């Protein structure tokens, strides 16, 4: 079974703090993704990566950055956390080359981040 592990289930941070959300997958997948889930808005794509050291902006990248130094690890960084970044953050991975996304995403269990 594919395993996507997010390092924290719950986090509480203060406004202005730098926050790191870590994600590791064990299936040698090329592609990794960060989404956030908010009520009524579904899952919105923040950033994704289709190769080590490669990254692309998703639909809502403002206020976030990412790092992919190793194939299995994809980190989401909130440079200066704000209250509107309180959300459920979901990491996912998938196999397949960039131009054929015909394979499912496998998600971690999520990190519930609260910024106060």
């Amino acid at each position, binding site marked *: 079974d594919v395993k*996507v592990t997010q390092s924290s*289930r719950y986090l509480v941070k203060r406004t202005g703090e730098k926050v790191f959300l870590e994600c590791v997958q064990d299936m040698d997948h090329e592609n990794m*993704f960060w*989404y956030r889930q908010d009520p*009524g*808005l*579904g*899952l*919105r*794509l923040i950033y*994704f990566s289709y190769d080590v050291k490669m990254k*692309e902006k*998703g*639909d809502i990248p403002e206020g976030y950055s990412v790092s992919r130094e190793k194939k299995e690890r994809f980190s989401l960084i909130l440079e200066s956390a704000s209250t509107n970044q309180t959300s459920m953050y*979901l990491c*996912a991975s*998938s196999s397949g080359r*960039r*131009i054929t*996304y*015909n394979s*499912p*995403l*496998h*998600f*971690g*269990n*999520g990190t*519930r981040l609260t910024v106060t």
Partner: protein
Amino acid sequence: DQQVKQNSPSLSVQEGRISILNCDYTNSMFDYFLWYKKYPAEGPTFLISISSIKDKNEDGRFTVFLNKSAKHLSLHIVPSQPGDSAVYFCAASGYTSGTYKYIFGTGTRLKVLA
């Protein structure tokens, strides 16, 4: 602009009956479609998918139908069980906004009544 839409935020169904969840999309470049189930405090779990070259895919109690001309897909669950109560997300993947992405709908909360 919502490229993948789930217009029903919630649905209630009696145990044993059919549940039908609907999803519409706007981008004809999408070529792969997926359904996920999500319980509270857990990540979404992949249920079933369909490629744009097919119009139906079945896996046990779950069947996904794709109508490309209408840009519509649906998930049928037969028979529905109380354990199916969850939020269901549809997703589409393909070329959009200059790159390849997976785009999700806003979800439909299914409640199966015992």
